[in-house]
């Protein structure tokens, strides 16, 4: 009887096959992103979109195959927490970049070096500090 009870209540444990599939897919995605960046198959924003896109795909692969998100009876609240976290993460990252790219200093789309110089000059940072 105990065995039956245990088997009945066991949360979805995944299977070796699901872990192996997740593992192989993750390796393929990692190596693909690596090759594209290392051999300069793309550059600038195209490259950033491609490798970040591959990372997001891998995020979902691991969430499903390793963390079994979305399966089992208690998964609804896990999904809710994850969706809320994703929202906060996006607002935090996108918001920070958006604000920082639109500061006064950046208005003339300066190079990072020129930007540094302007900030050093405007904020009165003494050369001895660097």
């Amino acid at each position, binding site marked *: *009887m*105990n065995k039956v*009870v*245990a088997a009945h*209540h*066991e*949360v979805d*444990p*995944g*299977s*070796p096959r699901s*872990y*192996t599939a*997740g*593992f192989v897919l*993750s*390796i393929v995605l*990692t*190596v693909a*992103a*690596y090759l594209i*960046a*290392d051999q*300069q198959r*793309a*550059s*600038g924003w195209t*490259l*950033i979109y491609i*490798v*970040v896109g*591959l*990372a997001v795909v*891998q*995020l979902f692969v*691991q*969430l499903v195959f*390793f*963390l079994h998100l979305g399966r089992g009876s*208690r998964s609804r*609240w*896990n999904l809710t*927490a*994850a969706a*809320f*976290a994703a929202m*906060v*993460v996006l607002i*935090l*990252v996108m*918001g*920070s*970049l958006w604000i*920082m790219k639109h500061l006064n200093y950046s208005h003339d789309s300066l190079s*990072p*070096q020129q*930007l*540094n110089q302007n900030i050093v000059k405007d904020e009165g940072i003494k050369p001895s500090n*660097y």
Partner: protein
Amino acid sequence: MSQAATITRANERQEAESKTLFGFWVYLMTDCVLFASLFATFAVLRGNTFGGPTGDQLFSLPFVLIETLVLLTSSYTAGLGLLAARRRAKTQVLVFFGLTMLLGIFFLTMELTEFHKLYVEGDSWRRSGFLSAFFTLVGTHGLHITSGLIWMAVMLYKVAKGGLNHVNVKRLTMLSMFWHFLDIIWIFIFTIVYLVGVAG
């Protein structure tokens, strides 16, 4: 004890266990927010090298690829270890989590080697905003890995000594969730810090 009482007790235990696991999941989600703020900081400060070296002058992609694959493999072995724990296969649990721990130590050693090299060559966190953000982001991940490794050592001891009782299986479940989570964070460090850093 009657059958009904056994079932009720099993249900209660199951209920408590799933609450614990959900609580741990919520912790992981808040940890996500911590890392998001560090990622945002890094993304903002990425170009602020203050005349110092940029990412593509500092990082070696093949080195980081190996680091990534090592951590990914450890995430896989942690998953297999958890399956073994559910089957109550003690030896396999010890082997898989032992393997996970070795791979984790190897990963951490590689990370510290990189940190040491940067520090010795004068490219520490004091060099530029970019490097401060780099060390904070990657170092925070490294600290998480370190605490995961300590947790794993404790669990290996507990399983070896106390066997696979319900409490230990529950803890192993949380430990492998934590480890998978750290692997996911690392994918984004690998992508945003290293891949984009070298080519962007």
